[in-house]
């Protein structure tokens, strides 16, 4: 994967007001719904603590719980596959499909499937896979990537979707969401019945029962996992929770944090397989063990993929998920992208935050995202040395602040020469890197004397 140019992507998106408006509307909508829903859950803060504790317990003995899950899942009749990386995962899935002569598959929304880029791979091997979540379906026919981990098509307007359905699927042009949804429903209904295999992700892997859980609203996951004779669930190993007794806590925090719903419409808990209905679980490692062994990154493994941090992030609200250039977007997505795709690909991403802390505040399992971003920034600067002008700026400031003589000289000089950059008593066109500031913002001129100097004068007068 090539280096992700976050800023370049972001600027492109900023020049498209339709996207900015659509993303803002969608994220603010989810936040407002969350606020209303949480007001109905008096013990929400305790639930967050409990969820955090359960995830901490998983991290305490990760291998123990993973083994326990696999053992119990096998007892349920599930076939367990383990993939070290994305390539292995793709091969495993292809193998399962080939052995059963699968030509057509339907799938519910799964970010892990996006992560391993399974669709183009299957397509290249002659297997057609339909995304059945409406948002994912739209993205698929538009040949785009999801722009939000739980609401993949929020960057598109109904007009764009209408045009897409009209051009690609031959639907009579309409912008009515009701009609568009109905069309997708009928279109996909046939596919469920024809499909040789159904695929899903998993929101939770339950160690003590070997069950896995898929939450959804549309019923497409139910269809995909029920109608075809084969169900392949693709999931990261971090989705573990210790016990089915912990599940209520997670069900109570997930939907409110995500879409702002009290509960999702459907919660599917799978614990059974049979000869007529095989269930395979593909457990994906792909960098997660590296995270587990990293004292700072490991906390991010607790993420339950609610997307709340994206909704609340003032940067995400402006540019949406595509700016992040990765399947995992938003604040937590920065960390995941760095961990999975590596520091060279993601070296710009950790800086794509003002460290405002809104993500930490909203995270249902209290992941200290800004703290992790700070550490990633340190690592990037250590690896790359940093950009020259930025390094110079920081170095200069450090000198000015630690050397009193330089300090006096420097600011004295600055106040003397600033006149040439002044307009209407404001600095409006500064040189060097400072032009990045004055491109958009005015700045007050430096006073001739510092507070300390003035204080000294006042004391001595």
């Amino acid at each position, binding site marked *: 994967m090539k280096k992700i140019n976050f800023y370049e992507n972001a600027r492109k998106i900023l020049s498209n007001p339709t996207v900015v408006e659509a993303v803002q509307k969608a994220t603010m909508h989810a936040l407002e719904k969350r606020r209303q829903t949480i007001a109905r859950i008096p013990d929400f803060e305790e639930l967050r603590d409990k969820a955090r504790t359960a995830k901490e317990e998983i991290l305490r003995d990760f291998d123990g719980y993973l083994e326990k899950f696999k053992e119990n899942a096998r007892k349920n009749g599930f076939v367990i596959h383990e993939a070290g990386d994305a390539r292995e995962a793709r091969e495993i899935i292809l193998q399962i499909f080939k052995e059963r002569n699968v030509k057509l598959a339907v799938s519910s929304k799964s970010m892990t499937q996006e992560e391993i880029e399974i669709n183009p791979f299957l397509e290249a091997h002659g297997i057609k896979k339909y995304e059945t979540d409406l948002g994912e379906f739209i993205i698929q026919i538009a040949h785009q990537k999801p722009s939000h981990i739980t609401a993949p098509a929020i960057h598109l307007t109904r007009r764009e979707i209408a045009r897409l359905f009209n051009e690609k699927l031959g639907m009579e042009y309409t912008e009515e969401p009701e009609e568009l949804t109905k069309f997708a429903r009928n279109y996909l209904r046939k596919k469920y019945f024809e499909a040789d295999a159904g695929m899903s992700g998993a929101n939770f892997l339950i160690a003590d029962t070997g069950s896995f859980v898929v939450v959804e609203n549309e019923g497409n996951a139910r269809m995909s996992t029920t109608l075809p004779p084969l169900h392949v669930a693709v999931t990261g190993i971090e989705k573990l929770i210790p016990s089915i007794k912990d599940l209520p806590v997670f069900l109570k925090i997930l939907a409110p944090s995500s879409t702002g719903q009290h509960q999702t419409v459907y919660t599917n808990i799978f614990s059974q397989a049979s000869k007529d209905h095989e269930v395979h679980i593909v457990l994906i490692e792909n960098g997660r063990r590296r995270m587990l062994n990293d004292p700072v990154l490991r906390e991010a493994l607790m993420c339950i993929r609610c997307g709340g941090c994206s909704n609340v992030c*003032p940067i995400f609200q402006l540019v949406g998920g595509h700016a992040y250039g990765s399947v995992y977007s938003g604040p937590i997505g920065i960390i995941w992208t760095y961990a999975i795709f590596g520091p060279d690909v993601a070296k710009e991403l950790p800086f794509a935050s003002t460290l405002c802390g809104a993500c930490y505040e909203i995270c249902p399992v209290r992941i200290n995202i800004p703290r992790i971003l*700070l550490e990633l920034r340190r690592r990037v*600067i250590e690896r790359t040395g940093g950009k020259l002008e930025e390094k110079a700026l920081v170095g200069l*400031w450090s000198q000015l*602040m630690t050397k009193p003589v330089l300090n006096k000289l420097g600011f004295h000089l600055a106040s003397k020469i600033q006149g040439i950059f002044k307009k209407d008593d404001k600095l409006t066109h500064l040189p060097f890197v400072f032009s990045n500031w004055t491109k958009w913002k005015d700045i007050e001129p430096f006073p001739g004397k510092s*507070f*300390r100097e003035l204080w000294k004068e006042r004391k001595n007068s």
Partner: protein
Amino acid sequence: MRVLLFPTCLVDHIKPKIGFDTVKLLEHFGVEVEVPEKPSCCGQIAFNVGYWKDAKEMARAWLDVYDVPGFDYIVAPSGSCVHMIRENYEILFKDEPKTLERVHRIKSKLYEIVEFLTKVLKVKEIPSTFSGKVTYHASCHYLRGLGVKREPKEFLKNLKNADFIPMDLEETCCGFGGLFSIKFPDLSYNMTKRKAESIKNTHADFVTSSDLSCLMNIGGVLSRLGLKIKPVHIVEILAEGLEDEKD
């Protein structure tokens, strides 16, 4: 009670009035204030963009200036700088037990000004007046970092003649983020513009906050957009109507 004032690098070099107004507030409540001769910066600007070596240099110099005997408290007119020292110095010096000792010692004495007035001096109300419509921007590190939410707004509401009008995006980041604003100027500007619109919708004459950095950023955009709303630090508002102790 003796307080050593940490004016912060920005107030020191960009808006000394905030330093004097902080002193005025403290003196009004009977506190004796001293100001160090040496300049200093908490190091946040370097720390937040990954230059921890430079951050350490500045932080160490800061400790040299402020970890001195003879003062009961250290007070600063900035939520963000206090947050840096209180929360991040331990990360920065985690492998230096001796320095950590200094950090712990100083942490318990360090307060942001409104925090100091309410938590240490137990001030309930500032006996002062201020004429004008004011809206409040909660700086991120003050609100979510230090957890101060209610107190500054209570002070503003209780000022005589002041008309406090909350804005809808009160708790949303203004888009400054230190060097973020230089690294990603278009993004930063668009965030600030959103903030500016929220401020404009209140029809306030003034926008205030605990942090000069946010105010410089917000003010920079308000000015560029030709809006007449004045950014003022919260101590400027609180101290404005106080009788000057020296007079």
